[in-house]
């Protein structure tokens, strides 16, 4: 079984982001970038499948600027076998990402694609679902557990009020949720080995995709400043303050 895992280069989750003064987007100059945390979970799951003898090859794909190679190297250091960089200096919107991935799936013929459920920069939560639709494959989103039942996948997902288990036919699209696993620390020997693993370079045009944006960003602004709180002396005061604020009737 071959597993394909798309990985996105995003602003590190620990960075406090700053909106550009012209309100066109987020300032990325000199900002630490990392692999999208949900994609780390996806890679971890794929590598575990390989270690369990279920997967034979794990391929990591990143679509974006040249520095996305760093994100692929991280995936390789975690245990992926090889990488594909689809280079684009333009912002690639979810639908175009899904179209490029469709092209890669057709070329690579994986049995399973594991994606992060969403990227922490634009929080779109669309790519996995769109890819499943474009391919006409089964999809299991927000996975918190993946098991195998013969040639089918038993996938547990967290839904409101409980857990839902889906039985999916292969090939299939899975998107990873936070509790699927805890990604490992890449080890020094694996980091050294990653250096020798191949990364293919492609462009969106290789897959016949035009990445021109369909969406127009009008304005990006900081969330409103939180007002400072106050300390109350008694329950009575608390109730009256909440009433004042219109929180309770």
């Amino acid at each position, binding site marked *: 079984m071959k597993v394909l895992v798309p990985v996105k280069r995003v602003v590190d989750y*620990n960075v*406090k982001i700053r909106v550009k003064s012209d309100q066109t987007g987020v300032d990325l100059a000199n900002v630490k970038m*990392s692999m999208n945390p949900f994609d780390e979970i996806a890679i971890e799951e794929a590598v575990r499948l390989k270690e369990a003898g279920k997967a034979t090859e794990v391929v990591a794909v990143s679509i974006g600027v040249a520095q996305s190679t*760093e994100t692929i*190297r*991280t995936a390789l*250091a975690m245990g992926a076998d090889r990488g594909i960089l689809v280079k684009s200096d333009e912002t690639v919107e979810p639908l175009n990402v899904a179209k490029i991935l469709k092209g890669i799936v057709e070329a690579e013929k994986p049995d399973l694609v594991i994606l992060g459920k969403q990227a922490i920069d634009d929080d779109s939560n669309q790519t996995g679902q769109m890819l499943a639709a474009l391919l006409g494959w089964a999809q299991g989103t927000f996975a918190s557990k993946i098991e195998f039942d013969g040639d089918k996948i038993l996938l547990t997902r967290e839904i409101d009020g409980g857990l839902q288990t889906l039985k999916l036919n292969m090939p299939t699209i899975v998107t990873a949720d936070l509790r699927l696993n805890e990604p*490992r*620390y*890449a*080890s*020094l*020997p*694996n*980091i*050294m080995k*990653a*250096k020798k693993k191949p990364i293919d370079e492609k462009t969106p045009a290789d897959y016949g995709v035009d990445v021109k944006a369909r969406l127009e960003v009008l304005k990006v602004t900081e969330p409103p400043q939180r007002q400072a709180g106050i300390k109350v002396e008694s329950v009575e005061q608390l109730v009256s303050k909440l009433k004042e604020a219109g929180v309770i009737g």
Partner: protein
Amino acid sequence: MDFAMTDEQRLIIEQVRRFVREEVAPLEDKLDPDESRLGPDDYARLVSKVKDMGLHGLGVPPEYGGPDIDTVTMTLIAIEISQHRAGLYSPCYGSFGGAGLAHLYEASEDLKKRYLYPTLNGEKHGFFGLTEPSGGSDPARAIQTRAVKDGDDWVINGAKIFISGADKAEYGIVFARTDVGKGRNGITCFIVDTDTPGFHVRRVVHTLRSAYYATELQFENMRVPSANVLGEVNKGFAIANDRLSRQRIPYAASCIGIAIKAQEMCIEYAKLRETFGAPLATRQAVQWMVVDNEIDIRTARWATLDAACKADRGEPFRTEAAMAKLLSTEGASRVVDRAIQIHGGYGVTKDLPLERWYREMRIRRIGEGPSEVQRLVMARNLFGASL
């Protein structure tokens, strides 16, 4: 000339940074602000993660089981693992393992078996006993502890002061005079078991550092077998010179780590805290403090990485290591001091790590050779051996 990290270094640093952020720092919310040890369960968990990363035994040469990395990479790691409250004297609470005393690597195989390997396994701990009440900057002249040959033993009498961790150690390295009147060519290095009759820890010397205590030692007719002489008789002083210079590099790096963390806190707090109707960050007086922090941090970092680079290339690096030690300890002291100023009253509370770093950084300008001695090392190199 290239100051960029390699892909591998970047990946290693990312792992280590995540480890400090996710595994080490959160534990400190529940620990005493002066703690330097973890409970056995937390410690074991951290060690096993560091082993999985392949980084256990940081600073141990690869032929002794340490990770196969160069000095530059080790320095980059050392800058990361100090970035938490206990980071200066107990980076990651020791979960990266200890390299043991530099001198032990120069010992005979018999001594290595008895002391080095058990130290690398964490079974034994050693102290380093050089400084005496008569002075630490110029030990070649100051050492008065005497060792006299008697049959197959040496009988040692004298005292040591400021010896870190001797109260908890199983053994230590003791420098003693074996030939009076020969200066640095009359000093011998001994390995001494702390249960030897005549070995006394006289007292704990309380200092600004509240953990891993300094001690005062006294030796009364302490008999040490000849087999425990490290290196040659009367040549104890030159042993491990190279390794000792090398040690100044991670010593410098851990100070830089603290400074980086303090600077992060400064920037965050200055943007948040408002006085006279505007955030501190908008005041030039505060901006300049932060800029001066950055200058101190970057200067120290470049100097330290330069020393590491030269060490890796096999070039002489004594001057560079001395400069790195000096710039990092003095620079990071200033950074922590400014950080306290920016944080106002909160800066000196035990709610924040700054006051601990402030106390411990003050020691760093004295320990491992004070600033003046580092300048002396550099002066000797600049003026030549004649001085």
